[in-house]
């Protein structure tokens, strides 16, 4: 269970633009264990999607390495061996634009089966039906429909079926439910959890919704401006958040019940906006918005420290081994 399936070491992805270099992902290291759901949380512009895209090979990392089952995967899609593409799959955020509107759902699901030679031509039809049944869509009703005529939730189900078609072991879920209603979201999350158990999948679950993360992930990685600010097991994380940014995030969640309200850290008023990743402020990138700013924060970039077992935080408040207050 605790075997590490994916390790990311010092991953950097810079984009060169006219305005300057955008450090979308800047020295990120983390690992994902076999069979777990690793949650990657951050606001927009924090580099979550860039990490996802780098892992599946849409981007080539500027620096650093990523290993999947010991194999170096820091290469672009065209240079990857086919077996790797089969193992690592992705579900995108917007199902409306990730499914080809001119193909029927059957054609969409057939493509990965053909490319990876999952089954013989005669079995393919059966496999497509099986995939649709797996995501709880009756095959007779959906097979010949175009993605345009079905609802957002159903589209996302098809996208999940497509990702799972070649029996992957690792799936990157890039905000799979952020465009959907809560009732549909609940359905999809349930399905994803069930599939994870049935097929022993490992998820990298990207979202900006911390309350959702609380319910799906076993470990949480918080990102801010291309860097990781805190890593912790979920339960520990929500009981004892350490980084000031994490506290700000948690206290910003609109809660729906009093019990939830009591779980939030004392009101940390959120202020300021995410600075542009073109000019990341010197020192700790969060110091402009931080309520507990110290002098050192604007000069030196903090490093990761392990405060408790498996609970890492990148903040000067903890860098000299001081206890959490």
């Amino acid at each position, binding site marked *: 269970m605790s075997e590490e399936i994916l390790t990311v070491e010092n991953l950097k992805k810079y984009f060169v633009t006219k305005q300057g270099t955008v450090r979308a992902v800047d020295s990120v290291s983390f690992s994902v264990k076999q069979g777990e759901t690793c949650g990657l949380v951050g606001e927009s512009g924090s580099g979550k999607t860039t990490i996802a895209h780098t892992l599946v090979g849409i981007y080539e990392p500027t620096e650093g390495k990523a290993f999947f089952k010991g194999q170096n995967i820091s290469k672009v899609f065209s240079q990857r061996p086919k077996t790797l593409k089969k193992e690592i799959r992705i579900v995108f955020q917007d199902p409306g634009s990730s499914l080809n509107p001119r193909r029927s759902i059957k054609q969409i699901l057939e493509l990965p089966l053909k490319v990876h030679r999952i089954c013989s031509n005669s079995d393919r039809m059966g496999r497509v039906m099986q995939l649709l049944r797996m995501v709880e869509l009756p095959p007779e009703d959906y097979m010949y429909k175009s993605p345009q005529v079905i609802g957002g939730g159903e589209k996302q189900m098809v996208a999940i079926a497509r990702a799972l078609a070649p029996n992957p072991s690792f799936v990157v879920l890039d905000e799979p439910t952020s465009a959907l*209603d809560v009732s549909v979201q609940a359905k999809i999350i349930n399905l994803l959890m069930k599939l994870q158990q049935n097929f022993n999948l490992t998820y990298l679950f990207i979202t900006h919704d911390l309350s959702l993360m609380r319910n799906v992930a076993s470990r949480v990685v918080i990102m801010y401006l291309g860097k990781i600010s805190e890593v912790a097991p979920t*339960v520990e994380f929500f009981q004892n958040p350490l980084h000031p940014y994490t506290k700000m995030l948690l206290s910003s969640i609109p809660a*729906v019940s009093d*019990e939830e309200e009591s779980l939030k850290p004392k009101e940390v008023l*959120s202020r300021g*906006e995410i600075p542009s990743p073109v000019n990341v402020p010197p020192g700790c990138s969060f110091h402009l918005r931080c309520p507990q700013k110290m002098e050192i924060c604007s000069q030196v970039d903090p490093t990761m420290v392990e405060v408790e077992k498996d609970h890492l935080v990148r903040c000067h408040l903890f860098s000299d081994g001081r206890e959490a207050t």
Partner: protein
Amino acid sequence: MTPLLEIKNLHVRFKIYEGELKVLNGVDMVIGEGEKVGLVGETGCGKTTTIKSVLRVLPTPPARISGGEIIYRGKDILKMKSAEIRSLRRGEMSAIFQDPLAALNPVFTVGHQLQDVIKYSSRVGGREHLSKKEIRARSIAVLKETGMPDSERILSNYPIQLSGGMRQRVCISEALSAAARLLMADEPTTNLDVTIQAQILRQLNELVAKRKPSILLISHSLGVVRNLTERVYVMYAGNMVEVARTKDLFADPLHPYAKALLKSVPKLTGEGISRGIRGRIPNYLNPPSGCRFHPRCDHAMPICEKERPTFFTTGDSDSHKVACFLYRR
């Protein structure tokens, strides 16, 4: 509390090639003077259509208001002349829409648009005639009120040069500088990050406390509604299914739809996630007869298919009403 706005049995239909979409199916709603009201429901429930009908900005055709009344301070908005409704929009009610980038004109500067709003809304009823300098000063002041940093510079920026949170602040400033009585916010924070959302909501709350307009907050984020409103309407497929004080609704939802919706929200307490609501929003071309929720309802009875439930009062107070036959006495 005297009602400021009263929607009675509003029906709105949209004409399309295949026929007519029966979207709003008898919506009833009351907003009191100075009251903060929330409206929640899934996508496609007709929330936005409701406020567009109130502002009379629905495109007709294809839309058609086929019945009902919208009474604003004793007068029916649907029967007003266009000059009257225009002066209402300028001086009394305004809306913040979901997507600030679509709401702002990309070819004019923020200052230009904001100053236009101030110029025309201040002229309503010959209230006052502001000089250019005064308008500019007021636009800077209203931007500052929403917590916009560096508001003088922002005035000469175009909307694309601003971030999402800043754009939404510009929209809020515009709405606030026009609205004296009724502010309708249609998912004002859906596109924003949680920390920015918290800021915007806090500022909105402060401004509302200071200026005391009535507010109608539409959102599918239940947490946002809970933090900002006093009373909530739950809408499903063009019908109001439940209304209660915010505190009562979140503590004890009655309608099966409201219950399921609340259960679907992921909680920080980490109790897992419910199964969601089966099925999806009905096709408005042929909506289900009777209660529109009955095909998805776990408690459906034979009567639900035949008759449309009216509001039944429950509990000890009159304020908690639910449109479901389970609560008929």
